[in-house]
């Protein structure tokens, strides 16, 4: 009976074929480390956010006079409403954590290089949509930080040339952040996750065209690939278990650690909080914004700082496989970049004093510098590495893969030694 049904479907739709080629049998490099778990985790958190979000929306009221109360209604009266809300609020932080690790892995292993540029760029688009979704979602509880965060950030669009003021009014739906802003942010906060799902589909189609990168950085021959199921399903689910342990310890035991105290005070347009801070995942970019004394410059720097990642395929033209693992200079640069991110995060969270501003400016220069110096560093490093010879195990792997398959995409470049 079941076979008959599947046959009937297969006649009309490539169900079995799809499952076999793209899910169970999908060839995956066997040497993937646990850092390759985070794409799956991001997908999981996306589903978690959509599901908890839909149930929250059944009880939430997007109305400036009702929304704060409706959150308390969810927290106190709705059955397990507190669980839904804490899962959703913690889930936003978890989403960024997972995505940032996913990006760090891509940067470390140079997985953005050919032929995976489109994966990297669709990922960049997904990051922007995630940021927009999180930003709009943060307005919905209508607390003090919601209100003033949205006021500060929408105000940045004044930097748009010529039509800045109109753009701000258009975004807010009013001259100030108010009921009109709240309702439109709610509508868009509900819409964007579905756009993200569409983006994820594109991201995955690209993935299944170019296949996963792997720590060696070399496209492995067929013999080093294993079917996704059961090997990576079991590995992904084990990783999911670890993730859930961390996530649930926050949801059940420290759920308020991600919620600013000021957001438990209803929005009050008459009273500015002493210290407006964004959520932790925006802090480094916020620090860059504040580091430029001029507003237009600050906004441009902040926008550029998020978009810098997209230039990586152009900036890093090194032909050394395996990313930072085989490139000592880039590896040091990678760790310094992460450290600098933490410095920027700290600066973004601290009230600006002269000292803090100076630290922020140095860190901002370092941030852009580490991108802009990559072309020079990577070429010099590549020459040095080729002259010195790659580590024997890498050479051996390259040789064995070359026998099993195509040649490495070693473009020739003037200045190469023979």
């Amino acid at each position: 009976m079941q076979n008959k049904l599947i046959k009937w479907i297969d006649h009309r739709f490539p169900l079995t074929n799809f499952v076999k080629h793209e899910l169970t049998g999908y060839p995956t490099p066997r040497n993937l480390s646990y850092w390759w778990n985070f794409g799956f985790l991001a997908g999981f958190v996306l589903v978690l956010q959509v599901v908890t979000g839909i149930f929250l929306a059944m009880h939430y009221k997007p109305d400036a006079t009702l929304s704060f109360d409706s959150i308390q209604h969810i927290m106190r009266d709705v059955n397990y409403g507190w669980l839904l809300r804490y899962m959703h609020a913690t889930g936003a932080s978890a989403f960024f954590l997972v995505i940032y690790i996913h990006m760090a892995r891509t940067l470390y292993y140079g997985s953005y290089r050919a032929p995976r540029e489109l994966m990297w760029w669709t990922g960049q688009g997904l990051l922007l949509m995630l940021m927009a979704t999180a930003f709009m979602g943060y307005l919905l509880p209508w607390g003090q930080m919601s209100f003033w965060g949205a006021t500060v950030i929408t105000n940045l669009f004044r930097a748009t040339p010529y039509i800045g003021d109109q753009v701000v009014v258009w975004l807010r739906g009013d001259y100030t952040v108010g009921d009109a802003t709240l309702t439109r942010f709610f509508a868009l906060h509900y819409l964007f996750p579905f756009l993200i799902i569409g983006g994820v589909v594109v991201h995955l189609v690209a993935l299944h065209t170019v296949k996963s990168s792997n720590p060696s950085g070399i496209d492995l021959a067929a013999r080093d690939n294993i079917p996704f199921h059961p090997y990576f399903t079991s590995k992904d689910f084990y990783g999911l278990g670890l993730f859930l342990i961390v996530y649930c310890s926050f949801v059940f035991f420290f759920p308020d650690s991600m919620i600013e105290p000021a957001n438990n005070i209803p929005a009050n347009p008459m009273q500015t909080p002493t210290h407006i801070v964004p959520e932790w995942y925006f802090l480094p970019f916020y620090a860059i914004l504040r580091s430029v004394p001029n507003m237009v410059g600050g906004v441009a720097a902040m926008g550029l700082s998020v978009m810098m990642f997209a230039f990586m395929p152009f900036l890093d033209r090194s032909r050394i496989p395996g990313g930072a693992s085989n490139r000592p200079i880039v590896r040091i640069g990678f760790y310094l970049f992460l450290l600098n991110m933490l410095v920027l995060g700290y600066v973004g969270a601290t009230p600006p004093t002269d000292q803090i501003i100076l630290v922020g400016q140095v860190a901002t220069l370092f941030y852009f510098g580490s991108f802009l110096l990559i072309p020079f560093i990577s070429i010099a490093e590549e020459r040095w590495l080729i002259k010195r010879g790659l580590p024997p195990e890498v050479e051996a792997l390259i040789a064995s893969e070359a026998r099993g398959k195509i040649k490495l995409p070693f473009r020739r470049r003037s200045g190469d030694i023979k």
Partner: protein
Amino acid sequence: MRKFIVILMLYCFNSVVHAEDVRLGNIGVDASLPALERGADLLMNACHNCHSLKYVRYRDLSAFGFDKKKVDGWRGDQPPEAALIGLLADESAVQMFGKVPPDLSLMIKAREGGENYVYSYLIGYYITPEGLLSNHVFPETKMPDVLGVSGVTDPVQRTEIQGKAHDIVSFLAWAADPHQEERHRLGYYVMVYLLVLTALLFAVKNQIWSRLK
């Protein structure tokens, strides 16, 4: 190890954002029912005149297990669905203090430092050398010294007042997060479940991967 790093990172981010302003050590709240009842009793007598707890209803108190007679006493002739609305009208409050006393339902969550802040605030009143009333944690506050700490020097009496403040704060902590106990209880089950599940998933994964090679 990696899990540890993740936890560490989360805590770092966390302390970056909330590092400031925790006054006193952790006073800890007493979540036992008698302490909460004492706290509610004190609050209805000493604070309810001026402050509301608009997200707490009398029926929530009895549903949680507070003594029915006590709740009925506080409620008077209001229906059980009524919220704990303060007795002072907003207009008179503005006349007296220049502002409306803030709602206390979420007070513990709405201040940096939480219960430690509110506790220190309540017992932070003192008389300045110029003979004026002031407060250590909120010097310019408009609220009078309700518990009367500023005039008391006798250590026994001071301890008594601190005990009262502690009970009130415990009740306010409950009011700000009435599902906390339930959350923790469920949380322990979830954590145990996840630990067992993850250990099993790890074993399954190892078993499957051992087929390779």
